């Protein structure tokens, strides 16, 4: 298997090499984040209080570690999205492997091994960089930085490689390569109304716990806290699951009754494959959700004049984490945009040959991003801010003006999410101009 993967790696196309490099970059980033999170939990900083700001206290340190671990989620989404780049070339190669005598299982495993190989390369680089940084920190700070947590590095690396291999396995699950060299894409399941079940359950739990005035019908006061936490988590995961459904509904609505051809084309293209957009936008949605929730919590402290340095540092770190998550999500959007352009290249070329100006096709890309990102970001912002406002309703009642600040914060987060998607689409216009070549439509 390894020999086959190495042979295939040597003959990869330029786009496939780009996919490998991007996957490796994502794996390196995820490894550094997870290693840092693991190490942070074991720091012994009490003796040198004040040397590293908020990290000297155990609880904030654990929060920072958790945030770093959570930042691995957008990195994982980036790897997953990137693993779908250049799928046409990949599918042709899979079909060729079947012709060469490989079983369907071997073909799938080869795909997984290729992705795992890229993750291993990137992960090793990330782990090496982290070990170097940790040793430098140990040299400069002494015993404060313990050596034992570095033993977690191989475990983290193994997890990253496993994640990479699984993403490769999942990316090829809709592809059926027959011995005749025919590659058939089994029709992926479309989004269904039942994808909203988790959202409904989360909202129901939150509503039951919040209307019970601090008590829940199961477990009383303790039950209410559990119900609120469970409701928030269910709502969050439910929103991710329901993203495809939400995008399809919004696209259908946008396509119906429009007289702008760019919007019609954009809406129908999004409606035809809402899952691809959902994959690319789910982390953007999560970032907007957390950002709006943080904003709603901070809205209560805006009017406070006695903010401690610790609070300011915590907020700064949170926003840094959100910015990192948004940038990583934008990377996933870039990968999606490249794949979508490849998918629609032929249609765009035919339209250009028929007299549709290329700038109009560029507007189709922008409107696709708008149609898909707007509902996801708005719903995420409303949900994120809404949960916090409902939880802290009593404090909100005492601070008039906080609600307006919270709404403004949520609107800003939604705007940033939509803007990220639109900017990525706009950045793809020069590529569209290069790729749309009507002369390639010649038949003889």
């Amino acid at each position, binding site marked *: 298997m390894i020999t086959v993967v190495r042979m295939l790696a040597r003959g990869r196309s330029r786009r496939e090499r780009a996919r490998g490099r991007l996957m490796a970059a994502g794996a390196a980033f995820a490894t550094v984040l997870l290693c840092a999170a693991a190490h942070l939990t074991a720091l012994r900083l009490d003796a040198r209080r004040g040397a590293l700001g908020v990290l000297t206290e155990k609880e904030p340190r654990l929060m920072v570690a958790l945030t770093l671990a959570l930042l691995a989620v957008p990195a994982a989404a980036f790897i997953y999205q990137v693993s779908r780049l250049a799928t046409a070339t990949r599918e042709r190669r899979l079909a060729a492997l079947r012709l060469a005598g490989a079983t369907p299982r071997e073909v799938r495993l080869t795909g997984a091994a290729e992705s795992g190989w890229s993750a291993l390369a990137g992960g090793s680089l990330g782990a090496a960089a982290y070990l170097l940084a940790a040793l430098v920190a140990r040299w400069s700070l002494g015993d404060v930085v313990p050596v034992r947590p570095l033993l977690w590095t191989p475990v983290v690396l193994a997890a990253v490689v496993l994640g990479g291999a699984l993403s490769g396995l999942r990316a090829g699950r809709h592809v059926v390569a027959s011995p005749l060299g025919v590659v058939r894409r089994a029709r992926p399941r479309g989004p269904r109304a039942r994808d909203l079940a988790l959202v409904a359950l989360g909202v129901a739990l939150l509503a039951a716990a919040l209307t019970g005035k601090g008590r829940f019908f199961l477990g009383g006061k303790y039950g209410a806290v559990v119900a609120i936490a469970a409701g928030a988590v269910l709502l969050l995961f439910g929103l991710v699951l329901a993203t495809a459904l939400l995008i399809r509904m919004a696209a259908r609505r946008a396509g119906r*009754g*429009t*007289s*702008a*051809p760019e919007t*019609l*084309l954009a809406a*129908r*293209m999004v*409606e*035809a494959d809402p899952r691809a957009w959902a994959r690319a936008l789910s982390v953007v949605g999560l970032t907007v959700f957390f950002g709006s929730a943080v904003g709603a919590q901070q809205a209560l402290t805006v009017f406070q004049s006695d903010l401690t340095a610790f609070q300011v540092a915590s907020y700064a770190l949170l926003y840094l984490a959100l910015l990192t998550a948004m940038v990583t999500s934008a990377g996933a959007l870039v990968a999606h945009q490249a794949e979508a352009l490849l998918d629609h290249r*032929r*249609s765009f070329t*035919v*339209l*250009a*040959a*028929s*007299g*549709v*100006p*290329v700038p*109009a096709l560029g507007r189709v890309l922008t409107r696709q991003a708008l149609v898909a990102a707007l509902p996801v970001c708005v719903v995420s912002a409303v949900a994120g801010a809404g949960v916090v406002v409902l939880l802290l309703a009593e404090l909100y009642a005492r601070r008039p003006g906080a609600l307006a600040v919270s709404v403004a914060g949520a609107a800003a987060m939604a705007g940033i999410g939509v803007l990220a998607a639109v900017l990525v689409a706009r950045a793809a216009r020069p590529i569209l101009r290069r790729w749309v070549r*009507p*002369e390639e*439509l*010649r*038949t*003889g």
Partner: protein
Amino acid sequence: MLEARTLRKSFGRTTALDGASVEIGEGEVVAVTGPSGSGKSTLLHCLAGIIRPEAGEVLFAGRRLDTLDEDARTRLRRENFGVVFQFGELVPELTAEENVVLPLLFGGRGRRESLQAARSWLERLDVADCAGQRPAELSGGQLQRVAVARALAAEPRVIFADEPTGALDSLAGERVMGELVGAARESRATLVVVTHDNRVAAYADREIALRDGRVVAGATAATGGTAAGTPGEAAAGGVSR
């Protein structure tokens, strides 16, 4: 209406057109024939302003087309030309009706007017039942008739068809050709069909034969004459307007 003078065009080391010259009159139905690689599609793409020749001139209604910039050629194509491709090349995400509507909307027509025109053309070409279906749900013949409707809906002055029956069986191919030629004659549009199939060429008033990038027969109406056994006139009854 359309004229090409000593066109030259190469793709890498391969010479596609090597001094090809043709004249096509208004309302004429012309078949461009020749073996694979003879430059048929390249000639069609030069005439349609899709690609620019390296040398020579292309004139449409007396106006140089090859010297226009990309924007001007795009506008010209949108306002005056309709194109039918070998595999229909409909946008897979749109329904048949939306595929026909799209170029009309891009041409600046209103949604209602565009929808009316699209429905009317789909009815004429006997694919009104497929209006709500997507290309993947259509048969090859239906798909190509929708493509014909898309090319004709904007009422172009010239229709270019690149192997329009190349992906169809003979029965479906004859039907598509009959309707394409019939609709072109009714709307007095010029039709330029690239084909290597003699049965398709027989629909034309004239056959322009290409070999190795040069026109070897039928460059002008005077040298071409009417193709033998033209079924085009009979086929004109296939579509009623």
